[in-house]
């Protein structure tokens, strides 16, 4: 008998999940009506397409230098019919470098975000799921991580791991772990108090089943929104780290943040070199931000009408 009741409570919980699925469907419907979301999606789509098909789009090699094009120090050929965005200080085609740069930047964004998200989910799940001293310990740890300004933290980790794009991605990821952890934990605590969870609990459904099967999946939507936003900040943070001298080992491999940082010295002589990657970063970050913000609004029950 009590088993039956328990099953029905679970079904009720599953309804809540369905509502979750419905939530996403409904959110999507609201999303396609928002101009901000559409613009964001277009930016992101262009970014991803360029990144994926870089070898097909780029007219030249992004790495082969041609010093014969450079007449002397400070000479940087501007845009021409053969080189649409001009050449850089080592005679490479800037357009091709920008195209290939999208690739690296996308990788940086996605990998750092994934790293932070997975780390944050593990910590948040442990804290929000187990509670008690585990929760207290993890949250103290998270507090400690948050007590160091983010960029400083990232520099510290990147410096320790050495000069490579991987260490940059890990650094940005680690800095984002506490953000995700807090978010998930808070959401799980709220969901644990939700009616369906309380009902299931009162009927003696196993805690792990409630938490892993229902509370956790129902708590993920803000985490996913945050993930979209983190894609944007990760690209910006990577640029910041590059500016401070922490980026991939090989400066020949184009990455927007690195290009932006490395071309600062040409600001007065060839501002276009600074401008291209700067604009590219702003637009791609804007794309992810618009998408994330719209998603957040679309998922917000307050805006459901």
């Amino acid at each position, binding site marked *: 008998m009590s088993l039956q009741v328990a099953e029905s409570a679970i079904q009720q919980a599953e309804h809540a999940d369905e509502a979750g699925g419905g939530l996403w469907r409904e959110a999507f419907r609201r999303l396609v009506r928002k101009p901000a979301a559409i613009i964001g999606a277009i930016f992101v789509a262009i970014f991803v397409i360029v990144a994926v098909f870089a070898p097909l789009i780029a007219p030249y090699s992004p*790495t082969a230098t041609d010093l*014969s094009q*450079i*007449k*002397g*120090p*400070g000479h940087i050929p501007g845009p021409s019919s053969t080189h649409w965005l001009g050449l850089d200080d*080592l*005679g490479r085609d800037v357009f091709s470098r920008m195209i290939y740069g999208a690739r690296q930047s996308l990788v940086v964004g996605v990998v750092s975000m994934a790293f932070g998200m997975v780390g944050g989910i593990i910590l948040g799940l442990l804290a929000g799921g187990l509670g008690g001293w585990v929760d207290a310990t993890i949250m103290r740890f998270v507090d400690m991580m948050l007590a160091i300004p983010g960029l400083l933290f990232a520099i510290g980790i990147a410096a320790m791991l050495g000069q490579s794009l991987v260490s940059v991605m890990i650094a940005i990821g680690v800095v984002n772990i506490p953000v995700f952890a807090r978010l998930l934990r808070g959401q799980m605590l709220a969901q644990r108090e939700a009616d369906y969870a309380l009902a299931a609990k009162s009927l003696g459904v196993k805690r792990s089943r409630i938490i892993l099967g229902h509370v956790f999946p129902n708590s993920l939507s803000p985490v996913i929104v945050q993930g979209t936003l983190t894609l944007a900040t990760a690209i910006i943070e990577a640029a910041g780290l590059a500016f401070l*001298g922490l980026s991939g080992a090989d400066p020949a491999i184009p990455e927007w943040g690195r290009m932006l940082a490395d071309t600062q010295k040409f600001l007065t002589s060839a501002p276009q070199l600074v401008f291209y990657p700067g604009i590219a970063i702003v637009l791609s970050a804007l794309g992810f931000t618009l998408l994330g913000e719209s998603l957040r609004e679309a998922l917000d029950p307050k805006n459901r009408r």
Partner: protein
Amino acid sequence: MHRRRGPVRALTALALGGALALAAACGGGGQSGGGNKAGGGSGTKDVFVWALSDQPKVLDSSYASDGETFRVTRQIYEGLVGTEAGGTKIVPALATQWDTKDSKTWEFTLKKGVKFHDGTDFNAKSVCDNFERWYNFTGAQQNPAVSTYWQTTMGGFKKNESEDLGPSLYKSCEAKADDKVVITLTNPSASFISVLALPSFAMVSMDAVKKYGDTVEMKGDAPNYTGKFSTENPVGTGAYKFVSWQRGDKLTLERFDGYHGEKAKIKTIVFRAIGDGPARRQALESGEIDGFDQVEPADVETMKAAGFQVQERAALNVGYVGFNQKKKPLDNPKIRQAIAHALNRDGLVKAKYPPGSEVAHQWMPPAIEGYNDAVTKYDYNPEKAKQLIKESGVTDLSLEFWYPTKVSRPYMPDPAANFQAFKSDLEAVGFKVTTKTYPWNPDYLEKVDQGQAGIFLLGWNADFADADNFIGTFFQQFNPRYGFRNKEIFDILAKAEAEPDPAKRVELYKEANKMISDFVPGVPYVHNKSYVGLAKDVQGFKTDPLSNEQFSIVSRG
């Protein structure tokens, strides 16, 4: 009820205040912008503002080892001997003449009537006191980061406190008369006189040292100069005397009216630290400063075109791509030659180095005796490089190429650019290049010197103009950096160093240069000219290959 309105009202007030402050700032903008120039006009003839790239570390020359510190101490202190202005020849300074029979006992005749800034006399006793001070360094003063140049050139101290210190080259000093002093060494050293020209061997007032103290503590990880002489009361015999040093702000010197030589033309020298290269140039352009060193190669022509003075400084340096022969396939001479032919040195120097820089073909600049015009040269020839690779029979063509970040050296203003150009060259002939990079100091230097690198970007700035300071320091003994043992090269360099006859010495170095070129322990690629940027009205400035530029001869038109 009024009480409760507090925060909002305060906020409004703040907003208003902020707007006012901003308005004031903007209004002040025009005013002060004009004021700058006007202010610059009055009394600027007697002020010379120089932008350093970094704060000096200390004002006691015997504790100093970096260029920006020396740039300041050189104006305050003088040594027994110096180098001729704009050249490398040793010339008299506080000593008018010197003599030695065995390179072991050195007798100096001192200039008379020289006074320190504190009014005490400079004489033979001062010289001996100075040497005894250095020789008797204890504790943290014996730290290689403190008495760097003494240890590099003279070895150890009277009582060595570390087993890593060797015996001292200095033995004793004797004041024969007021103006006669004899310094005795433990071993013969032909280069002793060149050593004395180093700014670290400047004569300081021992009265001041005793009065203010020259203590050093190793605290945390770095030396802390606690003695006031070393930071707040430096006293020398130079054309300028110290006035004040507001750290993080400015350091001021003033003409020493009791100077024994020609008095300084400009009354006040102000040193400012501006860490950012472009910012130094912009400061010169806006008239904030009168001069700075290390003009960016790309700026040389534009600054000249804008009417600023850009003075060339002769190159006493070499930039090179080093090989570590412990790493395969660099042990193969054909591969090393192939790399030498693969690198487009001319292209890089033309595109990225300032006009006047030379493509290097050996490991020391032409201005130094021992340079050999007849060494083997490896011209840029990718076909030949491919050919040599084929001949070598090496199939695994992967190379680990190292370059440093966070550094700009005269021979390497933009290491990343050099690296990318060379990497592209190497890939063009079939090498597979992987990249390694670290911040210059400490990581990069440490790892390269431990022999971890494969091929790497490095270079050298002369301490003094001597072949030994170049190829001697590179190749005289086994160096993990290069990872080879070539007895012939080691031997000839040792022989050259010990050779007392200058002419024979030069011949030996010429021979050594040829052997080194044939052995290809790396590819030297540039002797870089460096440039000093000066305001339009600065006159009399004379660049010096060892950066020994005296501000006392500078004036403003």
